[in-house]
């Protein structure tokens, strides 16, 4: 199969990255089976060091850190994944539409996106959250909309190239509608660059959500979430207790993994030039 052949040719770094991602996904799926305690269950004294009972010690309320970390994988990754999907849905839909329709529509939408992109995303998100209030839904919506501007740029550019191909023209002459052209002609051909971009955007969204949760404006306690867990336990670090480094390290671990794989994808996409 093409996929196994591709994997066999993959460089070591990409394989390591893939293993790192799979480990996280495994943890996220099988939490209830692996986790020794409950997500919000208080099991011992606060900020205990690592031991056989508590592999990574306990947090600021005496909950098991290892358990929280596993549940954090599930919550954080799931929310970031949903946000990225939504962002791709919005971005590519508008991007393809702008490219296929062209003319004034394309120009107007592109200008609006330019303006949105000129604004720093973190600041925009902070301002939006102050108005909307902090909840998971508003978090997902705000980040998806902000991030979809990047997806729009790419999908519009890719769709513009495809739009001038003969087979699209043939479909048009056959009398197919705009939506049909977008779905049946543009989408399948735009898939490869969009998939590579998905990894990059996921990384960005994931880090972004973690940062907002760290600032106390993202996913709210008691839900286990890596960014929020760093915030809750931050005070421990000045006593020389390394508890907050576990969730922070987990965030770094997953993004390094995704970046290693994306790096390899980008090299393949650019025709092994670099």
């Amino acid at each position, binding site marked *: 199969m093409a996929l196994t052949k591709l994997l066999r040719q993959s460089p070591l770094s990409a394989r390591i990255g893939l293993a790192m991602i799979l480990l996280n996904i495994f943890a996220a799926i099988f939490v209830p089976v692996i986790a020794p305690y409950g997500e919000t269950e208080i099991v011992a004294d606060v900020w205990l060091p690592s031991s056989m009972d508590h592999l990574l010690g306990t947090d600021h309320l005496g909950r098991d850190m290892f358990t929280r970390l596993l549940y954090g994988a599930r919550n954080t990754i799931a929310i970031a994944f949903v946000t990225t999907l939504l962002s791709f849905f919005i971005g590519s839909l508008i991007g393809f539409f702008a490219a296929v329709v062209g003319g004034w529509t394309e120009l107007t939408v592109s200008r609006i996106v330019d303006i949105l992109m000129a604004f720093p995303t973190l600041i925009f998100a902070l301002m939006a959250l102050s*108005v909307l209030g902090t909840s998971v839904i508003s978090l997902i919506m705000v980040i998806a909309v902000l991030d979809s501007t990047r997806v729009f740029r790419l999908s519009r550019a890719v769709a513009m190239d495809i739009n001038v191909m003969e087979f699209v023209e043939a479909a048009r002459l056959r009398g197919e509608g705009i939506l049909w052209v977008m779905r049946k002609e543009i989408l399948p051909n735009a898939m490869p660059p969009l998939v590579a971009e998905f990894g990059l955007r996921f990384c960005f969204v994931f880090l972004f959500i973690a940062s907002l949760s760290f600032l106390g404006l993202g996913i709210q306690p008691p839900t286990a979430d890596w960014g929020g867990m760093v915030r809750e336990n931050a005070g421990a670090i000045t006593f020389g207790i390394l508890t907050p480094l576990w969730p922070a390290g987990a*965030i770094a671990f997953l993004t390094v993994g995704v970046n290693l794989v994306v790096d390899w994808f980008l090299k393949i996409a650019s025709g092994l030039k670099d």
Partner: protein
Amino acid sequence: MNDIITMVIKRLGLGLLTIIVISLLIFVGVEALPGDLAEAILGQDATPETVAAFRKELKLDLPPHVRYFSWLGSFAKGDLGNSLANGRPVADLIEWRFANTMFLASSAAVIAVPLAVILGLLAALYRDTLFDKTISTTTLSAISFPEFFVAYILIALLSVKIVIFPSISNINDQMPFWHKIHAIILPSLTLTFIVTAHMMRQTRAAVINVLASSYIEMARLKGLKRMRVIVMHAFPNALSPVINVIALNLAYLVVGVVIVEVVFVYPGLGQLLVDSVAKRDIPVVQASGLIFAAVYISLNLLADILSILSNPRLLHPKSK
């Protein structure tokens, strides 16, 4: 020369337009707020009189378009309104914090810019050697790290394990300069680390791009010395993308400062912004957000203008 001036004016206009559109967006966003802002902030048990007084204070009793222009007008005059949380003028809250933020950001930039450009150049020149691979892997990991991860590692190492730098960067105006520097070493190092990684990767990519062009190959095939190829042929052409990379990363730095300030409880604009978002102190959020945005947009503008100045070909973009 005329072309350049027209271009600069055009870009400036575009930047201004962006800020105006954004301010309008923010304004409409606040308008669309479910319920009345006054009641939301004063709580359930506010008497109708206090609600009315509060609405007058915020000018909520005027029609929206009048309010928008008066808000924009007083903003331009430097009157940023009063904080909802403590009633103090926003301008007073922001002024010295903004100076602190710029102090922190520039301290990081002073180290990061030369370091990143030199490392990036070396990595590009010695491509695919062990040196390049080590640097590339390190920076790839560094850009994947959240800022607070780097920050807490630095605290654990340099503030707890070996006690040399404070983990809380409290500064004030009375402090002598060197004490201030000592206080901000850790946040500044965190920012330097992250920004250097980004900047170095992009510098490397930009230089490799230039080195791969056919005129460089031509110069090499002619038998020119390696140094001469780099200084006379590659450098002038790499200048434009590298300047662009620097300015873009400085813009990133100004925003990245927000999280680092929160970690180190640094009295900067970012810390104020985050606190005010949690308190829903909208006048402060609007003002500090717009200031961040204005700095960010100006630096992006500068990136555009500088890269066009150093590469006049960009003045006449090929139409697609």
